[in-house]
């Protein structure tokens, strides 16, 4: 695709400039929500939604191609499955202590970032699954509506 055509895709210059400034912050905020899931309100699901929103934001402002270049469908789908498998393996690793879903890592001091055993790891897995899943749902809707127009 030529440079010219790519510039025309998406919304106006104002939106593109604002997006360029904010999209990194949104992504960072999503990561913050995920990593502090066990300490503050939030966790894997909301954090994953915010991370997916940053990619959706990119797609709305710059058009489909730009966002898919950063994260295409196949890779997103792999992330999604990997997130689910990771969550399931963390749960199954509890069998080393005798129980499914056992929190087998040391809990640490409360309110420290590195505490609460397997819960932050679970949050990361959920974030992968939810973020990639939500992004894929959005991409699918976009692709289907494009097919309708033709």
């Amino acid at each position, binding site marked *: 695709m030529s440079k010219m055509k790519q510039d025309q895709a998406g919304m106006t210059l104002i939106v593109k400039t604002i997006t360029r400034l904010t999209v990194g912050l949104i992504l960072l905020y999503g990561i913050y929500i995920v990593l502090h899931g066990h300490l503050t309100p939030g966790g894997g699901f909301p954090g994953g939604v915010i991370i997916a929103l940053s990619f959706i934001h990119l797609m709305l402002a710059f058009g489909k191609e730009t966002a898919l270049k950063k994260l295409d469908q196949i890779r997103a789908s792999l992330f999604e*499955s*990997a997130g*689910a498998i990771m969550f*399931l393996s963390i*749960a199954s690793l509890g069998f080393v202590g005798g*129980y*499914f879903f056992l929190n087998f890592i040391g809990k640490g001091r409360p309110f420290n970032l590195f505490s609460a055993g397997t819960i932050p790891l679970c949050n990361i897995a959920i974030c992968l699954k939810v973020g990639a899943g939500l992004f894929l749902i959005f991409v699918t809707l976009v692709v289907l509506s494009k097919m309708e127009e033709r």
Partner: protein
Amino acid sequence: MLPLFVIIPLSVAFIISLIGRFYKRTGDILANLASLSLLILSISSLSAHHIGSVSVSVYKVGGWGGFPPLGIYMVLDGLARFMLITLNLVSALVALYSINYMEKYTSKYKFYILFMLMLAGMNGVIITGDMFNLFVFLEIASIASYALVAFGTESEELEASFKYAIMGSVSSSFILLGIGLLYSYTSSLNMADISAVLAEKGYSNIVAFISVLFLMGFGLKAALVPFHAWLPDAHPSAPAPISAMLSGVLIKVLGIYALTRIFFSVIGVGHIVLSLLMFLGALSMIVGVFLAIGQWDFKRLLAYHSISQIGYVILGLSLATPLGILGGLFHLFNHSVFKSLLFLNSGAVVYSTGTRDLQKMSGLKEKMPVTANTSLIASMSIAGIPPFNGFWSKLIIIMACIQANRLGYAFWAVLGSILTLASFMKVQRYAFFGKIKAGLKEVKEVPAMMRLVMVILSIICLVGGVVIIPQFNQVFLKPAVDILLIGKQYANAVLGAIP
């Protein structure tokens, strides 16, 4: 080892979704291995049972200390064992059948992902001892089944799936609302604990309201008659193996199992609920078969018969006598065997001839002997002809009706059986007997794997009656009946079994 029933199908589903895109055979191999190992696991769970006692084993998820309402529990009792065996038997055979049947669809691996997710959901519903977990697993199974109904992505299938999704969501909302109200009333989500708290707090109007919500929600999932409208669209539209799963086990696990578990063990069945269920069962029995008899679409006819046969199961269970519950559960097992066989037969006919319209087929017996003979056995089973398994369970249900002095219901059950026979004579006459049509001369029998599955299921139909002789009955059916008979004593049994 109880969580394995959920871990195996879930992990296989996600592994297939990770690598199924690159290696074409992963889906076939992994899904069959998983469903086979689940079958072996569920059969081996029988050996833990001690004859003559109500044996319940409880698994603490996450190893939480303390007693309910803390923690999440998985419960394996007689009824759960019975349902696990029924479910995993059908699903293992269906997975084997899918190897050949699903070849004609693109992206077969996606089929296996959804199939395994549905299986995980149903296994979860059966073994969970927690109300909210029940809802979550129920949604996993339902949502996977919405997607599977639409798997062919033709307009008819999408429409059926949409209708199914809407009705399913309505029923799930009723169930969720019921669970929410129950939680606010009892401050617990553990089924046994809820049962104990309800017994302590006594009856109140909110419990009656919750019962109605559950009756509507699970009634929709089980397709009892006033709530049946989605089933005749959804079940025929799915690919044949999935039709077999939906009609064979899904409506029973999500509908009947959850309904009986909640009403018999948790809320407790009163006289009103039982007579309501009995009436709905008899209504489904008759309305289903009357609607079925005029159908010309092979799979649609079978779908209407599912409604009718579900009526028999509900009628038997709601008699709440030992004989009635035995008949209901036995018919549940038999129906899942012969109805999945019939759907697989219809799938074989579609596979070879490409049509589901009975008027367009004739004399297929000549070209497809295995399909024709197995479908004859299944038809005789569902119509209740001795010595096939359907005869014994219907006989027990009718005897139980007479024993409970419900002669009217016994009459309707007999009438329903006769009409079932009539409509299956129509199927046999139009599809398999008679002279072969000119356009069907080139038809071939289906591949070996599909034939094998149909033969295995028809053998189970033929010898299924032996389950009722005492030696088998004592390990397979009687523990399930006992759990339902003790009713709200279930709470003590589970709470007493917590390690």
